[in-house]
């Protein structure tokens, strides 16, 4: 799952938790403009696919690159 609040997701037992951006906009960042936002959203989705392809045995956090890095 993508979560803006990974501590809660992990404590609830979510097996693969991808760190989202913010409660207000979990899967993107409107402040980056349309192009930057799209790049960030793509990055988050790609991280989710990587997470799905990664075997886990306990609740595991998958970080994403910082908003600015991902948007580049």
């Amino acid at each position, binding site marked *: 799952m993508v979560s803006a609040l990974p501590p*809660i997701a992990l*404590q609830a037992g979510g097996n693969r938790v991808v760190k989202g951006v*913010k409660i207000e906009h979990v899967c993107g960042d409107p402040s980056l403009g349309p192009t930057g936002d799209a790049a960030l959203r793509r990055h988050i989705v790609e991280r989710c696919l990587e997470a799905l392809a990664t075997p886990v045995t306990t609740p595991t956090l998958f970080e994403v690159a910082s908003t600015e890095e991902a948007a580049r």
Partner: protein
Amino acid sequence: MMELELGSFPVEEVRSGSPGGYADGVLTVDLERVRARCLEDPRVAEVAVDIVLPGESTRIVNVRDVIEPRLKVAGEGHVYPAICGHPPDTVGDGVTHRYEGFALLLAAEVPERIRREVSAAATSIVDMSGPGAVTMYSALRYVALTIRLEPALDLVEWNETLLGAAHRAAGFLASYLRDLTPPEVQRHALDPVEDVLPRIVHVHTLNGSMVPGIGSTIYGYARHALPLLLHPNEILDGAIAGDAVVTYPGKCTWVQVNNPVLPQLYARHGRDVDWIGSIVARTRWGAAAEKELSAFQTVKLARMLGAQGALVTWNHGGNDLIEVMLTIQGLERARIETVFLTIESDIKVVRMVPELAETGAHEPPLLFSVPEADAIVSTGTLAPTTSLPAVERVVGGETVAFDFERPDLVSPAGGPLDLEELSGAYSPLFGHFDNYGFGTQSYFDF
């Protein structure tokens, strides 16, 4: 450094009359002049002023804020500083007069477009008698304003206009106390402690609104900001104030200046503890990294202040608990012994019977926790009765709609109310989250 004398005037009776004034426990209020003060702002379209007393068959609906009228009679600044046109001078020094057991209550129906913008701007009620009269708000005597504003105002202006009218009215009522000698005076100062006592900090976490421009304020400042050290006297002089939009009980203005944590810590200062002051830390940041930063900076401040112990309080629910728990974790890891004062569950609890409490025993009562939070004091959970009887008189509006997910579920305010059926995730009883332990009710009588 700061010395505040709080002069209290107990109110045992409130009457309408002119001229207004206070004498021997009797408060006479010139209701027409109160109304005129509210109407000084042309954006205020309509005002009704009512006296409401405990024990009456009265229900107040659309409660937006409760304000204790206070007046600074000596010392710098203005009570409730930096809001509603008051100057931003630092408060907490001098002499402040206040009413004991009396408050100004602000009621206003939320226009539909504002309800759409802020889903939490739901209807809250106060019953003055009967099975719904379970909070301290049913025990106060009120001058209640029911205000309707010009329809075109946006959210921020709506909030500020309502608060402005309410604080003008409160200031007017407080002005009755200007030249009087208070029957009761309490001196508040963090005098230097001679004995070696544990240094204690109060970590006063305080929800910040995720909707810009509204929410409770610190010296008028509503936005999320990094933690700040306040002298408890600043809080007692109104440095923290509520808004008129979200009537979450831990955020109203009255509770800030009447927060029982402050007098309790004062009572222990110099006796068992050396109280440093209150670190006010905002909660409900939007990003996990912001929550961490706020918690880490709060811990750093406590360490720099030489704290050996901490009392952590909060005034909200939900995800605010993340930064609260991270703060507790950081304090404990820094070897600052920490106690957390909390409500037991932040969702609606209707009549809780022992069987239900037992079957729910495996559910975590708190959304998030850390192993370091090993000293927790519960204030319980107010469990209001599931249905309220009809009342003889209603103040604040004609209808109620409690559940923002079912806005068309509108009931006559004075009729019997089935709270379980009509409300959403939260109890509509104003004051049902008892963050600081005013009440004596819990899940059930143990």
